[in-house]
Structures are given as structure tokens and as C-alpha cells.
């Protein structure tokens, strides 16, 4: 917790959410926890901004929600990837890779 955390670049939260729900259906807290764990707590996802992003993605039809029971036996809203969400994730992942590579290239050559 002591090391410095990175702020998310604009627009990457959607990509991270899509990725987090790509393996299995997850509820909101699970998504934020997953991002926290996989990034080894180096990414700070503002929890408050997670839910607006989830609703936005659901509206676009990339993820869909259903109510289920959580591991601690509580009613929770689970999100899972739709086929169009899967395509979006692939496209965005590819785009992100190209962008990161290009930015890295520029920064190294100078």
C-alpha cells in the first residue's frame, strides 16, 4: 500500500472492466478487487467511478447484468461479457497495444 499508485489514463477504465469480466461473471466489488489484485495494487480505480462505467457499458450492450448470489451468500449484481463486448475487448486490447508500443517508441528515441 505504500508504493506510489498510478492514476488511470482517460478511457482505460472501460478496457480494464471488460478484461476483468472476460473470464467469468463478476459483481462490482469483485471487479474493483480483481483490478487491484492483478495490477498488484499499483492501479487506483476510484470505486465511485466504477459504477457509472458499468452502467455505461451495459447500456452499450458490451456487458449484461443479472442478479445472483455472492460467495458470502448475499444478493449481488453480476456482470458478464456479451459477444459484442468480447469483440470490443479484442479491438481495444489491440488498439491499446499499438498505442503503448507507439508511445514507448517515441519516448525511447528521444
Amino acid at each position, binding site marked *: 500500500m505504500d508504493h506510489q499508485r498510478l492514476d488511470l489514463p482517460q478511457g482505460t477504465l472501460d478496457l480494464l472492466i471488460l478484461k476483468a469480466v472476460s473470464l467469468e461473471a463478476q*459483481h*462490482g*466489488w469483485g471487479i*474493483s*478487487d480483481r483490478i487491484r489484485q492483478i495490477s498488484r495494487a499499483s492501479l487506483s480505480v*476510484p*470505486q*465511485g*467511478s466504477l*459504477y*457509472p*462505467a*458499468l*452502467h*455505461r457499458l*451495459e*447500456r*452499450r*450492450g458490451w456487458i449484461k447484468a443479472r442478479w445472483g448470489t*455472492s460467495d*458470502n451468500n*448475499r*444478493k*449481488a*449484481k453480476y456482470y458478464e461479457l456479451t459477444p459484442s463486448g468480447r469483440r470490443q475487448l479484442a479491438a481495444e486490447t489491440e488498439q491499446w497495444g499499438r498505442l503503448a508500443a507507439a508511445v514507448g517508441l517515441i519516448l525511447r528515441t528521444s
Partner: protein
Amino acid sequence: MFSDLRYRLRAVFRRGRVEQELDDELRFHLERETQEYLRRGFSQPEAARRARLAFGRIDDAKEASRDGRGTGAVSQVLNFARTLRHAARRLRRAPSFSITAVLTLGLGIGATSAVFSIVDGVLLRPLPYPGSERLVDLGHTLQLTGVMRVEQSDASFLFYRRENTVFAEVGAYQPRAVNVGGRSGGAQDQAEADRATAARVSASLFPALAVSPLRGRVLVPEDDRPGAAPVVILGERLWKRNFGSDPGVVGRSVPVDGVPHQIVGVMPERFRFPESGTELWLPSGIDPARTESASFGFQAVARLKDGATVAAAEAELNRLLPRLPEAFPGRLTAGAITATRMRAVVRPLRDAVVGEAGRVLWIALGAIGFVLLAACGNLANLFLVRAEGRSREVALRRALGAGWAASLGEAMAESLVVAALGGALGVGLAAAGVRAFQVWSGTGGWGELPRLAEVRVDGAAIGFAAGLTVLTALLVSFLPMLRTRRSPPNTLTVATRSSTAGRDRHLVRYALVVSQVGLALVLLAGAGVMARSFARLKSVAAGFDPAGVLTLRVALPAASYPTAGDVTRFDLRALDGFAAIAGVRAAALASKLPLG
């Protein structure tokens, strides 16, 4: 796309359910987060606190989620409806402010719209004929004792119509009153006769004005030949009144001044030419072989050809005029034309129709502009005082965490409620005002104001007046808010000290009061001047004492009184009869009323 629509529809129509789900979802998140902190060994209150801290403001997340759902507009509308209800409730608690503001708005909007509607209907709107901007009125001026205006004689009309190169068509007309038979239609049935305003018109008048009949046909040149069978065209109102809108009226016969005329057509109600009351059109009776060039009993209207100007037309008529006596010899000789410096005058038909009333109306419009300004000033003052009265409440709300936008929304909502009520009142007043003016003018209050029957309350005028006043109210409620935005805590202390207002506020109010007094003064002076000129116009010395003088007009049917001698005998008998009535001091006869 489809899923998006379904999602939004659900968000709108199952709003409560969707909100509940959002609550549940966020609560679950907080519980899980709290658990996480408990697992790390924090106490329950501390774990809950940390969870909330990590989450940030829950209401912000909710609001942002609603935006994410794409139904932000809907929830804003619902919020605003609530704000409006609150505003209405606050206004009810301040009746003196509310009533004054609504009345001011209503009067300002109503008076301005009414006057503008009249000006627009009479002066600005084109005459109800196609291409009316190319219609011109043809007349003459001559100098006898002073400059006087004469219209057209049968000769001058025929001559100009034949010789000109600038007009597409020239029509002549002559208003007159006739007796027209009623439903029974018998030629002798004079008991059923109505007096009606008619016009003798040349067949060319209809193409000149580019009007078409409702039923049947308009006059054709054959109708206007000497010796042609008498025909008549009815106006729609007369057709309804006397013939019960009989669809088979064309071809029937109706007595006009005792002579049976065949009805050949019906003109639509909107065609009111030359006067708003004209209901019958008869052939002009002009006989090219027997003209009287110095009898200017006709008026002429012409349609300019494409590209021809009023000035060019006038120049051409003045070139033609000296040749009139050779073409139609008569009492109007070349010598008479030179001696009287007779000139042809061409002016747009609208100017001719509106006449002198135009200037008065423009002055009235100017005056009403000041009324509107005064109303705005008054409103500004009212709202400023109101906003100051509220500044304490607003400061308190701000201190308790109300957003600046919310406070502004509340102030605006008040203005909107007042504006809606005032606007409704204004529309009602405008409609009533126009109606009252039409009635008053019709009963002779202002003489006959031309085209008044065409006047309708103008939507654009109401929009303009309402827009201006409402904008004033909004701006004025907006300004004090700006101040509270700058320094909310200060506002609170100032307000709670219930001290007097700051210097700058006084300045604004002084400026408003000064401008209002100034406007009122201008209005008062203007009204005074207008009233005086009006009174003077009305009391022009007529050269006789009009007190106690009664007039009446009579039209004798030519069938019963065929010769001039018959008419004279009737006149003399009638005069004797009038003079014999008790209380009548003197009776006289004239072909035309003085100043009539």
C-alpha cells in the same frame, strides 16, 4: 442499438426499480469492502469508515450512474418539476410580490402584443392579394384653392389602361350603397330589401388584384359592355346571410335597387375590396362612347409589371396625361390640365389603404415600447428586492451544502412560474385588447381604421414581449446569485447580521428607480402630446356646428324611380316629411355629406 434503446426505456419506465437496484448494488459493494477491512483486523466502525472513504461520495456515484444510463435528461426534468412546485409554493407565501410581478408581466406583454398586433395587421402585413407589393393606387392632384386630390374619371381610367406600358392590369372601382333583395328574390319585394355596401367595378379589377371566386366566376369584359344583361357578384357573408349558403345560388336572380340581376359568382369572405364592408360587386357601367372626363367618381388600382417601379409608373402617367383630352374629349381640356397643374400620383396600394392612420399607429407603437421598458424595469426591481430578501435563505442553504447550480435553479424556477402566469395573463389581455379596439373603432371611436378586421393577435409579438420580460426577470434573479457564488460565507454573515444592503446593491436599485421615473415621464409626456393632437384632430373647425345634426342615406331603386324627375319629386316629398316631424328644425338634401 436495440439493446441501448431497451436499456434506456427500462431506465425511464422502471425508474423506481432501477434506482432500487442501484442502491442494492452499492450497498453490497460497501459491505464487501467493509468485510475486507474487518478481515485485515480493523474494528467494525473503522472498517465501515474506511470502506466509505475508499468509495468516495455515494450520491456522486449514483448521479454519475444515472448519467451513464443515458436518462439524465429525464431525471433532470423530474427534478426540475419538483423545483417548480417548490417555487410555486414559495410564491404563494409571498402574494404581494407574486401578484405584482404577474400583473406587471401580464400588462406589459398584453399591451405590447395588442398594439404590435394592430400595427402589424394594419401596416406591416402585406394586403391579402397575391403579389400585393406590386399593387399601386392611381390618383391625381390638382391645384385649385389649394392642393387637392382627385381620383379617376371613366375617361382617365380607360385612357391609362389602354396606353400604359408599365401595368400588367388596371382596374377601376366606385363604392356605392345599394338595396339588395332578400331570400324571396322577387323584384317587387322591397320590404325584404337590405341596404348593402357595393362597388361598381371594371371587369379588369379581378385580374388586377389576382383574386378568384369561391363559386361561379368573376366579372368578364362582356358583363361590362353597355347594354349587357345585369349581373352581380355576391360576397360570402351576404351569400350566407341572405341565401343560406345555397350552393345553387349562381344563376339565380336577385333584385339590386329593384332591378333583377343574375348572380354569376360568390367571392370568399377574405376578399373585402374596396371597403371592409363591401358585399356586392356590380359592373362599372363605364361606356367608352359616353365618358365624362372631369367627373372623378372612380378610383383605380393597378398591378405593376415585373421590373416596373412606382416612380416609373408615375412618370409614364404624367407623360400620358396631356394627351387625355384628345383621346376622350370632354370638360377636362388640355387648358384645364395646365391651369390646375394636374398631375398623376402613383403610390403603393397599402399606403393608400392605410392612409393617415399609419403615422398614429407608429407613434402608438413607440409609446408602447416605453411601456414594455417600464414593465421590465419594474420587474427587475421586484425581482432584485425578492432576491435580496432571499439571500439569507440562499446563504443558509449554501452553507448546508446546497450546490450553487441548485440555488440558481430555484431562483430561475420562481421567475419561470411568474413568467408562465404573467404570459398567460398577457395573451388573454392582448386578445381582449385587440377585440375591444376593433369594437371601439367599429363604433366610430377612431373613425374607421382600415384593415382592422384583418388584425389577429400576433404570436411573434407575444413571443417577443414575453421573451424580453422573462429574460429581464431571469437576469435579475441571476445577478445576486453571482454575488453569492463569489463569496458564500461572507453572504451568510452579512445576511444573518440583518444589516442594510451593501453600497453596490443600492446603486443598482437607484439606477432602476431613476430609469423607471424617466420612462414614466417620457410616457406621460408622450401620452399628453398624443391626446392633445388627437383632440385637436377631432375638433377641427368644420365650418358648421355639427351638434344635433342627424344624417341618413337613401338609395332609390331605378325600377321605381326611372327618371331624374321622379327622384326629385321623391326627394322633395321626403324633405317635407322630415321637416314636419316634431323637433326637427331644418332638413336638407345633399349628394355628399360635408367631410364625409
